């Protein structure tokens, strides 16, 4: 398992797209936090829950989706370029390969999430302090925002494994946004239990009705179910 993870880490390190994702995350943080706080701080944003919203949305939504898409297209890319063959030759017991992918992308997501949060706070804190306001952050709030990134990375790896096509995987992840909105029309308040709805709950954004514990449990459930589904599909699949 260690050798498989080592290989996957090398794989991430040796592709320019990995650094593109990191740059994209940094750019998202800079643009979102600076633009939003610069416009609304002290005007629309006064209460701590409002003041920290740009930080939470940038890390918990934007960076989360970037990493989720990257994980999905990275795993599906193995099928596009035929590198899945080599990976399976090295790991004929396929569940081990999936576990290695999950571990690698989860670790990558934690690093990116933590770095994005650090950068966002480094930008936001001086701006907020200058207005004599507060972000009202607690460790639980910070960890919750960072935790969405790896949880969705797991979902991304699973979708990439199941779809095998980068385009299809991206379509599923991006298309789930409007799909969830449509479902919300039928489900009412239950929409809070759907994946993207749970992000709002986990981040404690305005209108959150579920506790963070419930939200993290539900999201973990989605991540686990998607990973199990991916494992079942991968185990049965012919690679030809």
């Amino acid at each position, binding site marked *: 398992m260690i050798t498989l993870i080592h*290989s996957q880490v*090398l*794989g991430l390190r*040796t592709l320019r797209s990995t650094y593109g994702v990191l740059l994209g995350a940094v750019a998202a943080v800079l643009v979102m936090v600076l633009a939003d706080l610069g416009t609304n701080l002290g005007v629309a944003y006064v209460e701590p829950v409002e003041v920290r919203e740009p930080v939470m949305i940038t890390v918990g939504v934007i960076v989360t989706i970037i990493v989720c898409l990257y994980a999905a297209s990275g795993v599906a890319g193995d099928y596009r370029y035929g590198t899945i*063959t080599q990976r399976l030759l*090295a790991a004929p017991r396929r569940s081990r390969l999936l576990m290695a992918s999950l571990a690698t992308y989860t670790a990558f997501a934690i690093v990116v999430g933590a770095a994005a949060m650090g950068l966002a706070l480094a930008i936001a804190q001086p701006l907020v302090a200058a207005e004599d306001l507060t972000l009202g952050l607690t460790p639980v709030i910070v960890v919750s925002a960072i935790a969405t990134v790896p949880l969705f990375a797991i979902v991304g790896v699973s979708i990439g494994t199941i779809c095998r096509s980068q385009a299809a995987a991206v379509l599923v992840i991006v298309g789930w946004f409007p799909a969830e909105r449509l479902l919300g029309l039928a489900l009412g308040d239950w929409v809070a239990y759907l994946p993207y709805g749970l992000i709002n709950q986990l981040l404690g954004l305005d209108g959150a009705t579920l506790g963070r514990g419930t939200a993290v449990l539900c999201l973990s459930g989605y991540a686990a179910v998607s990973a199990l589904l991916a494992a079942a599909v991968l185990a049965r699949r012919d*690679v*030809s």
Partner: protein
Amino acid sequence: MLKTRIIQNEPTGAGRSPSIIEVDGLSKDYGSVRAVDRLSFSVSAGTITGFLGANGSGKTTTLRALLGLVAPTEGNCRIDGRRYRDLRRPLSTVGSMLEATTHPARTARNHLAMLAAEAGASRSRVGSLLELVELDAAADRRVGGFSLGMRQRLGLAGALMGDPAVLVLDEPANGLDPEGIRWLREFLRGLAAEGRTILLSSHVLAEVAQTVDDVVVIKAGRLVTQAPLDTLLAAHASHQVRVRTAQPDVLVTALAAAGFTGIAGPDGAVVVTGCPPEQIGRLALEHGLVLSEITDETPSLEDTFLALTTQSEEIR
């Protein structure tokens, strides 16, 4: 220096080494299409075996089933007595080169470094293998810019990463120019001399005829024959010579007296089977015959191969 692992070949029975690769009753269906049909063959340790068949005959499916990438519908495949998935250290037991398995944006060195990590090999082996396949000068170039021949060499380096005793190569000569084919031939011979067992597929017998010891020929997913290459060629290479003379009856009689068959055709030519042209010339001289034509029509290597593998039914 590359370390090598030598399989101790202990001749058994008629001097053959024990089988290290065994395919037993393998069948594979894709929907209603049967790609491989009750295929059985074995590969002796320490030999180079050509796995031959026309395009679409089931070679790649068989190799992928052997390597655990495709689940057989029936039958099983074993390497060193075990299914691939049950091998403890698969990359150190079997090295394989299938179709493109490299990310085009990655350099050759980084590609091999990933394989080294998977195989538990040292980073120094990456440099050794790049040197071995003569890609050291291109080591830091992206694979997407490689020629087909360079990719094949990189694939061979990857197959050797775990220093395996068995190599499974799918169409390694595909797309290579004559110089590349010669390089490959010498390379494989060198590997075989180290005691490795090599199973390589091809749809062109001539590409591998100077490399392989044994051949397994399949057609429409079924075994046609498995034999040493020499035996196969001898069985299919009876001389056939067309001779033209003013006295065909005399030639036919002379041939019959010498134990050969000559059939005079309506155009006056005599088709002689089983007798080399030189001997026909001597017989004609002894009987004072003037020959106006003597043409060797012995089937070529490719004719023999085509006769064995021409599809009677298309699989794909």
